[in-house]
């Protein structure tokens, strides 16, 4: 990544082209959370003003500011580094770490067989065991689609967040949660009253329509679509739980609270459940459908 000081300095020079894109600022009115201000504060923190640290935890890492910035400046990444949170930027490093920390036997799917074979699910953090490729490969995925080559077959490893990224939509040989959901007939789980679809903030915008189209084909058209940050990430819900609720309520403000929310973000799901929403990820739907 770019040296944090350069990233932050660039924002000091900017009047704040991204501020209205920041869900934390728009929901809470806390000006310190607006990315250009957060950058200024982060610089002071780097220079030794430790009393500025609370502000660093106002960022969910949703990347909205990066998408809005003409320079693609990654304040969220610089802030994450300053918070002491590890950010693993290379696929190899991710896979190495995840392999070392994998948990056994949570969900097993077979990429080469048309029928999904779920061995067992345990909930919580999950590992994906990709079988039937000659070698049982054990990898854990944590958010960025590592691509593995196992026995000559490339797999994209995806959890809820990135399950429907371009690669998993376009690569027919890859197992996509949508294929699984379709085969399990998961649509019936949502009932007849419709559902709200939450597209997380990090979803690549150029593939938004493909993603919504894919989900609509399998689960039916959503009653409403919510795009953006529900404040699940970046440590914000832990450090500022009340603000996390404000952000979630702000993001969900135009939705029907009586409808289930299908989200691609497991952190969002947890926060929404605390707010009383019936919230499910695609993997939850798979699990439920398989158990029925």
């Amino acid at each position, binding site marked *: 990544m770019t040296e944090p000081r350069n990233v932050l*300095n660039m924002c000091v*020079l*900017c*009047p704040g082209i991204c501020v209205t894109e920041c869900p934390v600022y728009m929901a809470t009115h806390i000006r310190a959370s607006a990315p250009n*201000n957060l950058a200024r504060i982060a610089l002071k923190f780097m220079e030794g003003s430790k009393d500025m640290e*609370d502000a660093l935890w106002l960022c969910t890492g949703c990347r909205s500011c990066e998408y809005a910035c*003409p320079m693609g400046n990654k304040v969220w990444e610089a802030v994450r580094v300053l918070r002491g949170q590890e950010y693993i930027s290379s696929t190899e490093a991710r896979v190495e770490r995840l392999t070392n920390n994998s948990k056994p036997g949570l969900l097993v799917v077979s990429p080469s067989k048309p029928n999904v074979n779920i061995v067992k699910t345990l909930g919580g953090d999950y590992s994906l065991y990709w079988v039937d490729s000659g070698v049982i490969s054990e990898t854990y995925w944590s958010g960025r689609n590592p691509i593995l080559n196992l026995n000559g077959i490339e797999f994209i490893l995806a959890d809820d967040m990135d399950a429907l990224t371009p690669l998993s939509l376009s690569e027919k040989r890859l197992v996509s949660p949508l294929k699984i959901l379709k085969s399990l007939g998961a649509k019936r789980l949502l009932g007849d009253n419709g559902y709200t679809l939450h597209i997380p903030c990090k979803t690549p915008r150029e593939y938004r329509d493909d993603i919504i189209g894919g989900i609509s084909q399998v689960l039916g058209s959503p009653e409403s679509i919510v795009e953006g940050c529900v404040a699940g990430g970046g440590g914000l819900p832990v450090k500022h739980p009340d603000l996390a609720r404000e952000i979630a309520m702000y993001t969900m403000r135009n939705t029907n609270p009586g409808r289930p929310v299908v989200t691609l973000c497991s952190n969002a799901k947890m926060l929404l459940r605390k707010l009383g929403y019936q919230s499910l990820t695609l993997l939850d739907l798979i699990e439920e459908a398989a158990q029925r």
Partner: protein
Amino acid sequence: MSLDKFFEEATGLLGSRWVLLSDWQRYPYSRDYWPILVYKELSGGRASLPSGVVLPGSEGEVVELLELAGRHGVQIVAYGGGSGVLGGAVPDKNWVVMDLSRLDWIDWYDEESGIVDVGAGVYLKTLEEWLNKQGKTLRHFPQSFPEAVIGGLISTRSIGQYSTGYGGIEDLVRGLNVAVPSVGLVRIKPSPRRSVLLPLEQMFIGGEGLYGVITRAYLSAYDLPECSEKVGWISASFKNSLGNARSIVRRRIPPDLFRVYDEKESPLHFGVDGSVSIGVVEGECNVVEAKIEGIGKIVNADPWEGAELADKWLSKRFNVISDLWKLYELGMGFETIEISVPWGSAYDLYDSSMKSLGKLDRVFFTGVHASHFYQSGVALYYTIAYSLENIGDTYNSIWDTLMGEVSKHSASISHHHGVGRMRAKYLEAEYGPSGTELLSKLKNCLDPTSILRDKFFGGKS
């Protein structure tokens, strides 16, 4: 003055969530976008923090906070988007910032009349998006479009890139609510026009929060245009371009967005020699076509052929950071100064000021474009790049030089950025001693205990 008492009572009024006292909460309010403070911060300097920040959630709370401030001798500065470039929202150490961002409602006041009712803290971008969904627009696009809020735009008498067709913010404001220290909440109902002594809503447009705090605005929205066509052409010189622009405006067929660049800026922005003019013509398609044909006859060129010049500018019009960053890496700072001048002295002022600015030490580049046009004159926008070494001296010499030229040519010291802290010392050059005294007396009448600060008069800042 008792700040402690003020904050104690403000907390009772607003709740502790909306009274900000810790360093990280106050730091964002230490400056606006005044370049001298931006560069100071980049060089490791630390601006003074306000003593605290209050965020009222209603118009009533704004009035009560002003009353509290008066009772405890506290000075308040209203804070909108923080995009002002002259230090108008920069607080002194003991001041309290009133952040108006919670006044964020948007609703129709009268949809049939196209009048929208908005809180002072609404972001212009948010409002424009809301209107666009309903086929409407404010067509108010200042450079600060992404970060400016309605209250701040009105307070600084903002203008946007489509001004030639749609006017400035003063043409959009139909009514206002303003919290005035000596009066309370003044409610000026929306009206298409009125002739009732002083038009009170106009009194506060450009008041920069000195006479009252704007809490609500009633704004006129337009229908989105049927057609929007880009045009452009190149003239041999800026002098020719200005002459053509004057003819186009006088014939009442100007592009709604209209910009004319001098021979310094044209190569920089468009990679061409000469003087570039670009525009966007909007409205009913047949009217648009007729206007463009008329423009072509005046400039002796086919305006459609230069559409890509306009495209190029439109695609990056809100991106200032790329250029600023490149300059900063070269050790250079950046200043923009806008003035307005009658046609009769426009080119003379341009020519004379370019010579004067060109003689300054540590000034590497000065370019000018004209981007707001009137029957009687034009706004000139200076862009100046200078060395960050000895920034204070250089910065002041740039301003003194240009304001001296403005004074010499009977031009106005500001077209749309306002006064803030930076222009306070040139105020008399605009209104003369008696005009400045009148402003000062108005201030004393509306805000007798100077709750809303008095640093703008007499160059005290």
